[in-house]
């Protein structure tokens, strides 16, 4: 418990202090880098809800990043600039898509579930590619950022702190959810499905609701991402992106509050370092990931909790 508090204290302090420090040494790039990591950490947190706590190996989670991002892009395309509209639609649309995909997928389990979520994401990816007005394969530029009163997402440092606050908020909300009655039911269904049913829990509605919440939260991440890069492509929805999200969750430690955040930082910083070495950094990352799966089962957050 002490370790946990220490971890969060250090992380929060470091992240708060980063922009002024980094700007003082004239390296603004790191503000953008860490901002991107925090935005994707929100996506990882949402995935941890269904994967780490729910046991749903969804290989299609990046779809909601795409839906959220494109919601912002498409609204901006048609001249809607209100940030509230952008974010509301991003979250709402993602939740709806999650409802549709989840309703079908959650009827299956095991390997079928993995393959089906993968297939549905791919379907959305192709949909994204074939919508020529929105750039198709090449993607689209975001015409106007999401406009909020008081907060200018166009300013890198402001956007950084917005992402920071939303990341902490997401982690907090998810931790409340997983410890609530709903969360316990979800975790029970993961722990022992047959027993949960015997007691009277119905796994399907519980899992579906978790899936929808996770989808909506990931849509928030997508909306932030669109404001971060201001150019989005369908590859945001590809299964390679989904795989990256899964690795963040696993690497950091599934089913923990700190895990997805740790994993996002670990994976994306590792990628940054490797990119500095060679253009072909994936040739090194790939085997590293394989090794991490083989040897590093409980992830980084394992140092915080007692394991069997």
């Amino acid at each position, binding site marked *: 418990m002490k370790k946990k508090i220490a971890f969060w204290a250090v992380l929060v302090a470091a992240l708060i202090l980063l922009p002024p420090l980094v700007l003082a040494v004239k390296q603004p790039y790191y503000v953008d880098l860490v901002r991107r990591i925090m935005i994707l950490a929100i996506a990882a947190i949402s995935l941890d809800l269904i994967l780490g706590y729910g046991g749903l190996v969804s290989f299609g989670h990046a779809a909601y990043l795409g839906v959220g991002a494109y919601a912002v892009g498409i609204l901006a395309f048609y001249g809607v600039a209100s940030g509230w509209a952008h974010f509301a639609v991003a979250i709402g649309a993602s939740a709806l898509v999650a409802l549709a995909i989840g309703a079908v997928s959650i009827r299956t389990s095991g390997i079928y579930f993995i393959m089906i979520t993968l297939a549905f994401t791919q379907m959305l990816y192709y949909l994204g590619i074939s919508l020529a007005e929105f750039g198709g394969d090449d993607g689209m530029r975001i015409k106007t950022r999401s406009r909020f009163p008081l907060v200018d997402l166009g300013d890198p440092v402001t956007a950084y702190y917005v992402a920071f606050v939303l990341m902490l908020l997401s982690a907090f909300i998810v931790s*409340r*959810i997983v*410890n*609530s*009655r*709903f*969360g*316990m*039911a979800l*975790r*029970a269904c993961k*722990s*022992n499905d*047959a*027993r*949960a*049913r*015997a*007691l*009277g*829990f*119905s796994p399907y509605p*519980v899992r579906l*609701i978790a899936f929808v919440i996770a989808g909506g939260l990931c849509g928030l991440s997508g909306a932030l991402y669109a404001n971060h890069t201001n150019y989005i492509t369908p590859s945001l929805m590809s299964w390679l992106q989904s795989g990256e999200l899964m690795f963040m969750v696993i690497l950091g430690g599934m089913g923990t509050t700190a895990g997805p955040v740790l994993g996002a930082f670990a994976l994306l910083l590792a990628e940054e370092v490797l990119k500095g070495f060679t253009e072909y950094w994936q040739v090194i990352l790939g085997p590293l990931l394989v090794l991490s799966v083989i040897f590093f089962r409980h992830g980084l957050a394992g140092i915080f909790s007692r394991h*069997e």
Partner: protein
Amino acid sequence: MNNLLSVENLSKSFGALRASDGIGFDVGEGETHAVIGPNGAGKTTLISQLAGNLRPDAGSIRFAGEDITRLSAPRRSRKGLARSFQITSVFPEFTALDNVALAVQAQAGHSFRFWRPAQQDSRLTDPASRVLSEVGLTERQHILAANLSHGEHRQLEVAMALATRPRLLLLDEPMAGMGIEESQRMIALLGALKRRLTIILVEHDMDAVFRLADRISVLVYGRIIATDTPEKIRANEEVRRAYLGEDA
């Protein structure tokens, strides 16, 4: 006729194997009814059909006057029909208290609350603590289920079934793998539950069966060959033949 459970012509086959062959019996309210039989007689198949984990091929099951044959396991549980498992089936990553609290929660409903921590909800933890003290696990309630001993697992199994406040308790070999001392404790526990609940007890431990049961049904090759009081079953010729080699 105050039958809580009525089973009529229950049949289930797995390919050529008739695991349940026209099973029929009644269990009255407040009765403790044991089901015994040699290995492979189909006892667990019967329990699974009663609990809703297995669909029968034919026959009907009536519970409190209602036909529950097509009802799913979660729904039967919510109607008051609870089951324990022959092979311990708990939630290993949760503490004993959490395990029982989950059982309470499943029965109480209201699982769609997203904010308040369940582990601090006294409406769940108080009943859970009470049940745990009934089965004698109070000192171990904060231990992770994975770290409990085998006997404690069996106690936890019964506790979880009890926590759903059932009208009918299906116990599938609660004494499986227990030593003498643990068995005696379990027999005492079940004895204390007898009048409060209706119990269907599948067991190999004949000491327990004859001390607890009001009536006994004997299952051999998927058929019930006799249903009667313990003394009459003891004296039954056919039953003795079926148990050749086993002590009765």
